């Protein structure tokens, strides 16, 4: 990819932890870029997700599936501290990124989200021009170099450039849903994160737009690590390398908690799941 050089030089070193050491590039190939260890997420005293342990492998797509209320989006949001603004939200256990605990006291959540970006279910472009949407993060992060080049690179990587290059100053809101979602991906990758979290990025899109986003996910794994939450099991089967299946379980006190049931290579999980709860869910034998 032509942008590779720029990419490495402009991606900031991993310095979310002021006192921390940079572990980037020292891991063996295929090593996890993130690791969850016994992660529970609480909203006040309610334990929404209990004891999640799983890796996020570098330059791969990791899918999280499961019924509504199983905690998969909660876990996704815990990966870049998006639950922080929710009053009473709290994480126990460890979420590490290149070996650094993301919830350590001196870690800046803004910097975390700079390295671990997020794309949401509903395309949410700013009510600004296409150009300004992509340039926004670059400007506030004070990224140096020619803004035009960075914007073009991000839009190209998001497979949107050819469709918008002649109308960069037009409102982003005039784009189709699928284009808006790719614009949001461009906005996310413009600041060169390492990990992109996607929360049901295709659920509002038609099959053609969905296919484009899926192609993009596969393409983006050359440079990024992707974690996707999806209700579409075929989508998880199509694009992901590993799949985590979550479910909601009722404990002795009749309280529901989300739980990770099984984490496997995607092919294995969909042909020969280890856990009966996974089998029942993916084959449609619910409840």
């Amino acid at each position, binding site marked *: 990819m032509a942008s590779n050089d720029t990419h490495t030089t402009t991606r900031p070193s991993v310095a979310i932890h002021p006192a921390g050491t940079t572990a980037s590039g020292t891991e063996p190939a295929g090593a996890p870029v993130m690791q969850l260890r016994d992660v529970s997420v609480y909203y006040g005293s309610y334990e929404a997700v209990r004891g999640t342990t799983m890796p996020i492998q570098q330059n791969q797509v990791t899918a999280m599936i499961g019924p509504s209320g199983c905690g998969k989006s909660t876990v996704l949001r815990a990966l870049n501290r998006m639950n922080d603004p929710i009053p009473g939200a709290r994480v126990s256990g460890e979420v590490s990124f290149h070996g650094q605990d993301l919830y350590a006291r001196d870690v800046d959540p803004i910097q975390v989200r700079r390295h671990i970006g997020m794309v949401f279910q509903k395309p949410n472009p700013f009510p600004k021009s296409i150009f300004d949407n992509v340039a926004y993060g670059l400007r506030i992060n004070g990224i140096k170099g020619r803004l035009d080049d960075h914007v073009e690179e991000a839009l190209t990587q998001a497979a949107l450039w050819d469709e918008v290059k002649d109308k960069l100053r037009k409102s982003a809101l005039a784009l189709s849903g699928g284009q808006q979602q790719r614009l949001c991906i461009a906005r996310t990758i413009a600041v060169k994160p390492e990990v992109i979290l996607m929360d049901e990025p295709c659920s509002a899109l038609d099959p053609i737009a969905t296919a484009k986003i899926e192609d993009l996910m596969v393409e983006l794994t050359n440079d990024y690590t992707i974690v996707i939450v999806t209700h579409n099991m075929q989508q998880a089967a199509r694009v992901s390398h590993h799949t985590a299946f979550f479910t909601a379980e009722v404990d002795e006190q009749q309280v529901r908690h989300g739980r990770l049931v099984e984490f496997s290579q995607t092919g294995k999980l969909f*042909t*020969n799941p280890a856990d009966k709860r996974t089998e029942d869910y*993916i*084959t*449609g*034998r619910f409840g």
Partner: protein
Amino acid sequence: MVRDIQDEQLDRLTGVLAAMSREAAAAIRGASAALFDADRAAAEAVVAGDVVLDRYRAEAEAMIPEVLVRHQPVASDLRLVVCALRIAASLERMGDLAVHIAKVVLMRHPVGVVPQQAAAVLSTMADAAARMADKAAVVLATRDQVDATQLGLDDDEVDAAEKRLLSLLVSGWPYGVESAIDLALVARYYERYADHAVNVARQVVFLVTGTIRL
């Protein structure tokens, strides 16, 4: 609801395979009876009956793409569909091999194919093959791995019997080359039949465990 439709289609597929396994067992019994009794009518019945297995196989093969398209089965459902393709092919082939035996009988009729010296060893093969077909049918229904593994032992018996027969044929066989060729072929048909029965059982093990035993 939709899940019920899928279950119904998978049940129908399983039903077709069960019917095929019974037909394949009946075919080899018919062929063996024709062989040992030089029974023309029995041999003709086996040849004529093979179309039933062919039809079942075609039915299974038509159902499978439809299940794939409509339901995108995964996990054990997917393994069932994949196995069903292979199992249907094996059972249909078992029917063909029974037909081959019946055709040898028809070709030599009214002369018998099995002289006294070969009767014991061939009937060992015939019994084992029929037993294996029955077991394959049971394994298909029960999906019992222990029974499935058992089929391998029966197969060893068939292989050993084939070797014994071939050594009879090459050491001063008194009934001529034509008879030796007939018997070598018949033995090979039984041996292949038994292998396909083993394959059916192996597929069932894969269906249950998700792993292929080599």
